[in-house]
């Protein structure tokens, strides 16, 4: 086969979220089943129907950027840059020769720098000022994460941003995977980031009535909705050939990517769309459904998603669905929207590598509508070799990644 068949591996991961400020801290929390969800501190929550969120509480911009740069980079893009630095550093990837121009940067975000825009609108509509701060546009633009990474690391290859709501990062990683596999680029930094904690954005989510006043309890009968989270995660992808040649530490292999659109309701999920995306990821990976061991579910904790996702999994896997282990790590890192798929891709890669499947925490009671093995509350040792990571967005856009444990060529 031509270059379309190059094998693609992840050799570095960077993560900032409520569970920690680097990949090791975040994986330890996921493995230990420790949730980072708690009362939101960065916004005055008086009068809101929900109080909990998954904030990156210990992340300080000044630890990572000099003061003048902080003015020019919204929190969502700060997460993107810090995660990208970590991913490249962990991969020990050196941009020698023409690699600066042959590396792609593909970032996902659902809301971009809307917290900066919200601040600007407060200045105009509430404080009566004539205009918002002049940096509002570069702070807000959705591509700020990709742009800031390119400037920070001096990477001159293809760089762009994908915004497909809660599937953004999964679409971004999938696109990057395809570009490396096809030979369009040699390597890619890809993932997503999100920072949705502003008064205006939180009230917009409240108005949708999908945020739980409780904890996020995916697949549990008493689930009441999602918990918003923030953070960023980036993966360093490259060809297996290059990774082996330079003696890189391989985290796992990306083997498939599938997408679909529901072409249905704007917020009500369908069975068919997610099922098609899972089937497409398996087809792209040239793998039978029976080979799948673990699924990191979209698992938002809303009544509609978890029941519908369960039906979609049953449709794709048939009887094998009862042999699958499934968990929603959103129960720990919250729903970080456009970053969610990257946090979960990281969790999935680590689960395969470490032989530990992270649990669905805060789980109270089985729901007949969600009758799968959802790894309730406690992580599980496993020899899982093949996994999917699901992301299903508002607007009916679905994206699924397939990963395989790395066991050498």
């Amino acid at each position, binding site marked *: 086969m031509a270059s379309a068949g190059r094998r693609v591996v992840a050799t570095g991961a960077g993560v900032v979220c409520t569970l920690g400020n680097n990949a090791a801290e975040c994986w330890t929390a996921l493995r230990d089943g420790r949730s980072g969800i708690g009362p939101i501190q960065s916004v005055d929550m008086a009068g809101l129907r929900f109080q909990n969120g998954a904030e990156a509480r210990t992340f300080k911009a000044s630890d990572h950027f000099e003061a003048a740069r902080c003015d*020019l980079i919204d929190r969502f893009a700060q997460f993107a840059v810090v995660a990208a630095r970590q991913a490249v550093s962990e991969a020990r990837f050196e941009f020698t020769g023409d690699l600066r121009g042959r590396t792609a940067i593909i970032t996902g975000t659902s809301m971009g720098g809307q917290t900066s825009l919200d601040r600007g609108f407060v200045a105009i509509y509430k404080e009566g000022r004539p205009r918002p701060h*002049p*940096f509002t546009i570069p702070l807000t633009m959705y591509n700020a994460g990709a742009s800031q990474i390119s400037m920070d690391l001096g990477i001159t290859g293809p760089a762009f941003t994908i915004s497909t709501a809660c599937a953004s990062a999964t679409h971004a990683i999938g696109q990057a995977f395809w570009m490396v596999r096809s030979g369009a680029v040699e390597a890619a930094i890809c993932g997503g980031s999100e920072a949705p904690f502003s008064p205006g954005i939180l009230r917009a989510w409240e108005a949708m009535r999908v945020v739980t006043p409780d904890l996020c309890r995916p697949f549990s009968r008493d689930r009441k909705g999602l918990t918003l989270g923030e953070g960023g995660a980036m993966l360093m992808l490259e060809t297996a050939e290059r990774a082996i040649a330079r003696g890189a530490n391989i985290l796992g292999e990306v083997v498939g990517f599938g997408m679909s659109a529901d072409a249905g309701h704007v917020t009500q999920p369908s069975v068919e769309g997610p099922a098609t995306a899972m089937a497409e990821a398996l087809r792209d990976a040239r793998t039978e459904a029976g080979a799948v061991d673990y699924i990191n579910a979209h698992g938002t904790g809303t009544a509609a998603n978890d029941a519908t996702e369960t039906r979609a999994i049953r449709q794709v896997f048939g009887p094998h669905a009862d042999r699958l282990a499934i968990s929603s790590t959103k129960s720990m890192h919250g729903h970080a929207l456009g970053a969610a798929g990257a946090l979960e891709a990281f969790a999935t890669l680590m689960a395969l590598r470490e032989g530990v499947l992270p649990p669905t925490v805060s789980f109270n009671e089985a729901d007949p509508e969600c009758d799968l093995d959802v790894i309730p509350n406690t992580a599980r040792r496993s020899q899982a070799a093949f996994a999917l990571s699901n992301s299903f967005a508002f607007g009916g856009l679905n994206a699924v990644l397939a990963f395989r444990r790395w066991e050498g060529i």
Partner: protein
Amino acid sequence: MDEALAAKVIAEIAAVKRIPVESITVDSTFEELAMDSLDAMNLLFSLEEHFGVSIPDEAANSIKDVRSTVAGVERLLAEKSEAGS
């Protein structure tokens, strides 16, 4: 030149660039102060806020140093007080 006004403009520049006030004089050029286009934009925003004036785009493009900035603000303040009187 209004010395008090110049001092205020210099203080705004120092805040925008995060440099000591003492490193700026009325004869400093933006180039000497390493003010790029974003810094200049940021400065104009601060001046508009501080002095309650609106700096037109043409004027914004023409100022390249502290002296012309002070002169521009002085003119806008004069126009403002005439309009108000």
